[in-house]
C-alpha cells in the first residue's frame, strides 16, 4: 500500500499537537493517581465541568475561553480540596480505599455526567474565539490554530507546574508524599494537608484542560468517558509520577491516534487509545521513563 506522504506528515504533526493537549488533560491524573495513589476516575467529569464553565462564560461575557480557564482555576482548586476532604474522611482515614473508594469516584463520574446532561442537555456545545478556524500554513503543513494554541499553552503551563513542584516547599512536599509518606513527617509537614493541596491542584488543572477541550472540539456530556482510558494510559505509560514522562506518553498516544484516524477512520481511534492502555498496564509499573 502506497501511503500518501503529505497525509502522513500532516497526521504526525496533528498528532504532536493533539499530544500537547492530551498532556494538559492527563496532568491532573498524574498528580492524583501517580503521586497520591488516589484513583480519581472522575477526573474527566471535572474536565467537562471546565469545558462547560468556559462555554457559559464565553457565551455570556464573550471572554476568551483560555482566559476563562485560567481565571476559574482557583474555583476548581477549592472544589478539589472539598472532594479530597470527603474522600479522606470516608475512606482513606480508615485505610480502606479499595472497592468502596473506587465506587465513590465511579459514582462521582456518573453524577457529574448526568448533572451536565440535566443542565445543558445532550446537544454539542462550542465556544467562540478568533483562533478557532484559521490555520498557519507552511508549504504542505497545515497547523490549525485551535490545536496549536492549546498545545503551546499546555506545555508552558506544565513547565510552570514542574518548576513549582521542584522549587517550592509545597511542591517538594508533594513529591515527597509520592515517594515515601513517612519521610514527609520528618519534614514536619502534615501529609493530609499536603495531599489535600495536591489533590486540589490535580482538579484545578481540569479548568484549563476543559477550556482546551471545548476549543478543540464541540462538547457533550458523555465524551468525558473517552478520556478515562486515555488519561490512565498516559499516566501509566509515562511512569506514574513523572511529568516529562507523561508528556512523552501523551505525544506518542496523540500521534498514534492521529495516524489511525487518518488512515483507518476516526471510529477506530478509541480502540487505539484503549488498546494502548492495556499494553501500558501490562508493562506496569516501569512505564517509559522507568522508576
Amino acid at each position, binding site marked *: 500500500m502506497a501511503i500518501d506522504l503529505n497525509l502522513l506528515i500532516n497526521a504526525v504533526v496533528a498528532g504532536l499537537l493533539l499530544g500537547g493537549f492530551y498532556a494538559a488533560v492527563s496532568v491532573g491524573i498524574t498528580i492524583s*493517581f501517580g503521586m497520591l495513589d488516589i*484513583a480519581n*476516575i472522575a477526573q474527566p467529569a471535572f474536565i467537562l465541568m471546565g469545558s462547560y464553565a468556559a462555554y457559559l462564560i464565553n457565551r455570556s461575557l464573550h471572554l476568551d475561553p483560555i482566559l476563562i480557564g485560567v481565571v476559574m482555576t482557583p474555583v476548581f482548586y477549592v472544589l478539589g480540596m472539598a472532594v479530597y476532604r*470527603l474522600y479522606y474522611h*470516608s*475512606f482513606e482515614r480508615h485505610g*480502606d480505599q*479499595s*472497592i*468502596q*473508594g*473506587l*465506587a*465513590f469516584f*465511579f*459514582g*462521582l463520574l*456518573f*453524577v457529574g*455526567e*448526568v*448533572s451536565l*446532561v*440535566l443542565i445543558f442537555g445532550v446537544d454539542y456545545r462550542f465556544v467562540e474565539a478568533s483562533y478557532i478556524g484559521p490555520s498557519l500554513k507552511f508549504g504542505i503543513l497545515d497547523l490549525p490554530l485551535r490545536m496549536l494554541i492549546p498545545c503551546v499553552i499546555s506545555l508552558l503551563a506544565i513547565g510552570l507546574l514542574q518548576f513549582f513542584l521542584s522549587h517550592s516547599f509545597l511542591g517538594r512536599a508533594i513529591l515527597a508524599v509520592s515517594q515515601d509518606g513517612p519521610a514527609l513527617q520528618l519534614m514536619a509537614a502534615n501529609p493530609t494537608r499536603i495531599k489535600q493541596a495536591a489533590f486540589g491542584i490535580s482538579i484545578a488543572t481540569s479548568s484549563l484542560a476543559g477550556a482546551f477541550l471545548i476549543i478543540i472540539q464541540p462538547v457533550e456530556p*458523555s465524551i468525558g*468517558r*473517552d478520556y*478515562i*482510558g486515555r488519561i*490512565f*494510559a498516559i499516566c*501509566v505509560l509515562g511512569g506514574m509520577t513523572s511529568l516529562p514522562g507523561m508528556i512523552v506518553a501523551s505525544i506518542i498516544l496523540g500521534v498514534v491516534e492521529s495516524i489511525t484516524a487518518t488512515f483507518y477512520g476516526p*471510529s*477506530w481511534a*478509541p*480502540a487505539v487509545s*484503549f*488498546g494502548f*492502555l*492495556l499494553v501500558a*498496564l*501490562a508493562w*506496569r509499573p516501569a512505564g517509559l521513563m522507568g522508576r
Partner: protein
Amino acid sequence: MRNSVFWLLAALSGVAFLAVTRALIANEYYYFAAYVVLQYIVLSTGWNILGGYTGYTNFGTGAFFALGAYASVVLHKTVSVPLPVMMLVGGIISGVIGLGTGYLTLRLRGVFFAIATLAMAIVMQTLIVNWDFVGGSRGVYIIRPASAPIAGSYIQYLYTLMLVLAVISVGIARTIERSRLGLGFAAIRDDEQAAEAGGVPTLRLKLISTTLSGALMGMAGAPLPYYVTYLDPDSSFSLAYAVNAVAMPVVGGMTSWIGPVVGSILLGTIQQLATVTISSALNLLIVGLLLIGFVIIAPNGIVGLVLSWRRRARAR
C-alpha cells in the same frame, strides 16, 4: 438452610411468583418494568460473584451484557434457534471474554484491573461499531416474534425467561457463598498472598469467578434485542449498566447473595418509577447519588446495616 432445600424453595417461590403475577397482572407495562428489574438482579448478582465475593471490581458490565445481546442478533440473522438457546450462546461468549479478563488478574489488581475492564469494554464497543453485519453504529432492528412459545404475549415470555434466569443466578450465588469455593473467593478478596500461602490455587479460582460472572451477564443480555427491538452500541454498551451493576450490590450489601437482590429491587424499582414520573436522566442521577451516599455512610450496604442492628440488639 441446606442448599438443596434452598434451591427447592427458590424454585417454588419463583413458580409461585410467576403464577401470581401472570394471573393477576394484565397490563403489559408491568411486565416491561419487571423484566428490567429482574435483568438487574442477574447483572448485579453476576457482578457480585467477582466484585463482592472475589474482590475484583469490574467496570465493564455493559460489554458483557451487550455481547450477549449481539450474540443473539447474529443468531437471529443466521440460524433460527429458540431464545433459551440464544441465552446459552450469549452466556458462553461472555463467559469466554470473562475468562480472558481472568488472565488479566495475573498482572492487574485493584484500580488497575478496574480500569482495564473499562478499557476492554470500549475496545469491544469499537469492534461492534465497526461491524456492519450487526448494524454498526447505526444499530439494528429486530422484529419480535408475533407469538410466544408458551401461553401469553411475547413480553410475558421474556419476563418468564428472565425470572427463571434470576432464580438460577441467585441460587448459584448462594451455593457459592456457602461452599468451599466461596471460602477460597473470600480468602482471595481479603489477601491474595495469604490465600496462596494457605494453599488456595488463586489463579484457577479467579478464572472460575470471572468466567461465571461474565457468563451470567451475557445471559442477561441475550434477550435484549427482542425486548428493545432496536439495538445500537451506544445504548447497549451504556455506562448505566456498569454503574447499576456496581451500585446495586454496594447499596444492598456485597458479602451476601441477598445484597444484590435487595439492591436491584430497590434501585431498579426507583428507576422504573422515576423514568415514568420524572425523567430518565434524573433517575440515573438518583442511582449515582445513592451509590456515593451508601459507600460513604453504609459501606456494607443495607444487609450490613441490618446485621449490625441485629448484633447491637443482641448485645443489649
